[in-house]
């Protein structure tokens, strides 16, 4: 009795499995593969309403940072910072906490060398539409610009340009490439 029940389940299960395996066509299989590929992707969830991006840094933090910088500036003086690129999360222009250190080095340099000019080049990854990414790249560059400005860099030293997804730093269609392409390049 028990065995019969078991075999019946097995039997129908096998029927379904085989039919399902055979019934599909190339198109759906492709889609499944595509979907499987993106399942592994970890996308940052955007919870803020987007307004925080430009003003993500609060006044208090800035005050502290400025003080710290005063001290740091003594040490770095004329050394041009080596790291010139900071990275962003998908579809956001908020400056990540781990980018602050790099930006602060640039702020220190720019404040000491007030004749130095810098172009902030905003970029996006290939996903999404080109013009939206163009705007997103601009917002990222603008976010860096505001950060510099509130830290006391003269706005005459700063120029902003966006290339959207047109100038990828890394070729490729995976998370590793995308994360390297969502960036702002600080070019002297």
């Amino acid at each position: 009795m028990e065995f019969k029940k078991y075999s019946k389940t097995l039997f129908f299960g096998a029927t379904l499995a085989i039919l399902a395996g055979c019934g599909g066509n190339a198109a759906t299989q492709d889609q499944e593969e595509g979907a499987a590929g993106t399942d592994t992707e970890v996308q940052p969830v955007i919870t803020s309403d987007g307004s925080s991006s430009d003003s993500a840094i609060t006044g208090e933090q800035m005050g502290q940072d400025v003080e710290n910088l005063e001290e740091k500036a003594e040490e770095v003086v004329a050394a041009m910072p080596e790291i010139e690129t900071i990275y962003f999360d998908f579809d956001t222009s908020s400056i990540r906490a781990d980018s602050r250190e790099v930006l602060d080095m640039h702020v220190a340099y720019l404040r000491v060398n007030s004749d130095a000019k810098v172009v902030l080049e905003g970029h996006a990854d290939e996903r999404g539409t080109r013009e939206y990414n163009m705007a997103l790249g601009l917002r990222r560059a603008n976010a860096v610009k505001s950060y510099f400005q509130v830290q006391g860099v003269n706005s005459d030293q700063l120029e902003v340009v966006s290339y959207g997804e047109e100038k990828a730093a890394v070729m490729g269609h995976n998370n590793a490439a995308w994360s390297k392409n969502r960036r702002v390049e600080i070019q002297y």
Partner: protein
Amino acid sequence: MSGYRYRKPKKLVAEINVVPYIDVMLVLLVIFMVTAPILTQGVKVELPEAVSAPLDVNEDDLPLIVAVKKTGEYFLELGVDKEQPISPAELSLKVGKITRQNPTVQVLVRGDKSVDYGSVVQLMSVLQQAGARNIGLLSQPPEK
């Protein structure tokens, strides 16, 4: 209520065990699937009857007529070449073109009374290889 009292402790299985039925059905299915193609391999001939019902000549469903003369030559009633005898290879090519577009086309064989049986069978085989599924033989009603 009394029925409840007399119920046996062992639980009855009220459902029909369908597994044997499915087994039988599947075996039958396999048998039919295997035999079905074998059955259609023979030459299907609708033998002309002395008094046969007239064929429906439907404008939407024109028949393709192949004639066989006494000499055993074939004629395909198409286009300008109606009067020209046609080789079995070319016949197969042309009929193939038609059956690919029109798989249910009715192909009618108009054989001369005295044509030898072998060439009719050969024609039917050519037609079937060319994809014709619906082959009929034309007959004339007996004169009264």
